[in-house]
């Protein structure tokens, strides 16, 4: 086997993902009218462009670095490497690969991975067990959940891949940002040692500056969503979470959000709703159904139900200071890392989470909340009833709770989702 072939076989799931994204993009472009699901059209194009570059880099022999989604991936731009999101791969393949990746979940379950442990890791673990992934290293913060803590040792102890850990305190305080900043710096230096590279902080700074701009654009979009009707289609949530975890720190990412902002502004001016008429406005404080993102489109078109945002689309942090010294930059990086989706909620107590949900309900004129409780997310397993009570008492709106597995339709199917939400929506009118 020559080197190119060997390199070629290190990230087979990314190739599967590229094919799945390209095919979907082609379908969208060829079948839908020009204005059909723009977020999918532009988002898939952006992700496809970045992933194909990563595959080229992998073919050239650059080190393949698996990372946990809670590490903002632009931080890895200080290396000439191929960043592979462990969780994103599972969920985006379950969303876009025909037939999903249930066989890899089953492979891992049969190997002993508990059925209740997160499918976002389970999928990539199964693919690794099947020799489809060969990481040169993995890097992971110790957050946001038990599933992360529990699953990543598999890569180290069974697969013998070097695993770099950065301890992230489960406490959202000033001292935690300082500590995590040191952990981040140490983690990147250690990763560099493993893959034989010095971190290039100039490159890191450039990537962070791009993300600072992305953040600004996202905030503008977020502000426009307050309008009635919402000028953003539901599918934006799925695609935006993909962009957030797969392609941050790239111009493709910035371009995607700029395009979406233009569309949102245009629709806002015309008071236009993507699905025709907005009947109700929902907030999903947790996750969407990655196993079937078409639910979002169905909600828009069939029920006129806007999904204003999900957990990947309401966590914003301050811009990272890149103009001062490295210490200030790492401090900003730590603050952003600790405000990342799920990490923020996990490191905070429930009170702030409930408070900002209540405030969101008011600010965004939500008619309801739809809380999808994942089988894996135990850190959220005690919040639904508290949130339901707070929304009822303080805003007077109901919350629907649906238990599910975000990446596996077998637990709660698309049909069940449609039925439950369909009935729930009837109670709103």
């Amino acid at each position, binding site marked *: 086997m020559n080197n190119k072939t060997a390199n070629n076989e290190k990230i087979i799931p990314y190739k599967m993902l590229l094919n799945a994204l390209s095919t979907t993009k082609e379908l969208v472009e060829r079948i839908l009218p020009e204005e059909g699901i723009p977020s999918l059209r532009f988002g898939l194009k952006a992700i496809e462009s970045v992933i194909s570059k990563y595959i080229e880099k992998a073919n050239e022999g650059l080190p393949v670095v698996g990372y946990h989604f809670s590490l903002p991936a632009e931080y890895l731009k200080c290396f000439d490497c191929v960043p592979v999101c462990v969780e994103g791969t599972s969920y985006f393949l379950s969303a876009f690969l025909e037939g999903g990746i249930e066989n890899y979940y089953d492979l891992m379950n049969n190997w002993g991975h508990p059925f209740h442990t997160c499918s976002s890791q389970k999928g990539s673990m199964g693919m690794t067990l099947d020799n489809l992934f060969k990481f040169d290293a993995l890097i992971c913060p110790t957050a946001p959940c038990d599933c992360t803590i529990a699953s990543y040792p598999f890569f180290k102890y069974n697969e013998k891949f070097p695993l770099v850990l950065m301890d992230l305190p489960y406490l959202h305080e000033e001292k935690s940002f300082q500590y995590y900043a040191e952990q981040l710096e140490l983690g990147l230096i250690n990763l560099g040692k493993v893959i034989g590279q010095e971190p290039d902080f100039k490159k890191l700074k450039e990537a962070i500056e791009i993300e600072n701009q992305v953040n600004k654009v996202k905030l503008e979009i977020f502000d426009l969503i307050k309008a009635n009707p919402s000028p953003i289609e539901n599918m934006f949530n799925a695609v935006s979470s993909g962009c957030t975890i797969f392609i941050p720190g790239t111009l493709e990412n910035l371009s995607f959000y700029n395009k979406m902002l233009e569309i949102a502004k245009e629709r806002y001016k015309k008071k236009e709703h993507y699905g025709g008429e907005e009947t109700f406005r929902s907030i999903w404080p947790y996750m969407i159904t990655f196993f079937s993102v078409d639910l979002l489109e169905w909600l828009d078109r069939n029920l006129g139900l806007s999904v204003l945002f999900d957990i990947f689309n309401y966590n914003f942090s301050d811009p990272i200071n890149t103009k001062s010294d490295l210490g200030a930059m790492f401090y900003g990086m730590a603050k952003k890392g600790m405000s990342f989706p799920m990490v923020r909620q996990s490191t905070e107590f429930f009170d702030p989470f409930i408070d900002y949900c209540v405030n969101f309900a008011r600010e965004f004129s939500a008619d309801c909340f739809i809380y999808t409780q994942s089988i894996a997310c135990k850190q959220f397993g*005690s919040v639904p009833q508290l949130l339901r009570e707070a929304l009822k008492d303080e805003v007077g709106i109901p919350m629907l709770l649906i238990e599910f597995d975000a990446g596996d339709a077998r637990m709660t199917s698309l049909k069940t989702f449609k039925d439950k939400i369909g009935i729930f929506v009837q109670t709103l009118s």
Partner: protein
Amino acid sequence: MSQFSDSFLDISDSIKNPYIEDWQKNGKKVVGFYCTYIPEELLHAANLLPFRIRATGTKDTDLGDIYMVRFTCSFVRATLDLALKGGYDFLDGFLVCNSCDHSRRMFELFDLKVFNREDFKKDVPRFYLALPHVITNEGFEWYRKEVEELKAELEKNYQIEEITEQNLLESIEIYNENRKLLREIHDLRISDSPKLTGSESLQINMANSSIPKDIGNKELKRILHKLKERETLNLDNKKRVLLVGSVVDNIDFTQLIENAGAFIASDCLCFGTRNYMDDVKIVNNEDPLTSITRRLYFRLSCPRMMDDHERRLDFLINEIQNAKIEGVILQRINNCDLHGCDNMLFTHELKELNIPVLNMDREFYQTDTSRLQTRIEAFLEMI
């Protein structure tokens, strides 16, 4: 095997006990906690009674289920259920650390739903310790500061002028003696001629976690003496097993295993060896609080420590040799990802070493007994 009868062991069957009543009669306070990663010696030095929260005897989780979804740990749900029914109203303080996603959320739920009940009038201070998930020098320094802050909070909340070094040294001595006694009892279990069963050992450990340690030491000495005098257990053809995994706070489960034909010769449980194998060592004039934290942080870990699986495996392998183990029973309470994945790795690693392994899941409260019994019996036959 006949069950050892002693009033001390009976404490393990209930939550509250006469020692707690005596303690509180004198106006002294009880602080509840979930996990062995909290510095008990510090609480003791503050003249507080640390009480390890259990749900022993709880048969359902109806009330707990309102606030915790079904994918959460049934042990933690059962403790919440018990607390919602007033079972923990005797607490004067509540200390939680981020041991796992299930138990750390009790910090909020106890505040909002247990201590905030209309019929509950007491003001119960809460304390939170953020424990690192890796074992490093930086992590140790973080945890040391957390424990220092806890000391200040205890002093403030319980109007203690100062928890002195002398107080801490005295507590260390009492707790080290306590652990030494538990190890001596452990030696009587792992020996070729064992004097007590795994269920009895569990009872001793649970009872010991629910009373003041100076009394505990007296009781353990008495029990130790009684055990030494006792006849060696007749093991017949019972297989010597090592029990590993999630918290076990009820002998129903250990008896199920022992009645199926096993003798639980050792364990790796938090109401067991994980809690008493290491002592606080004071080295190089280190201040006692740092020494307490050092033991806590570097001792035999539980799977919530992300980078320490190898050391846990080494412990199992050593214990298999020490206690002449014939098979390992790995168990987890359903929805426990930490033990579930640690057990997954152990299964493959132990099988490679040709050590028979049973890896099973269960609920906290005794349910599905026939399935468990069948699996255990089949496993024991296979050894």
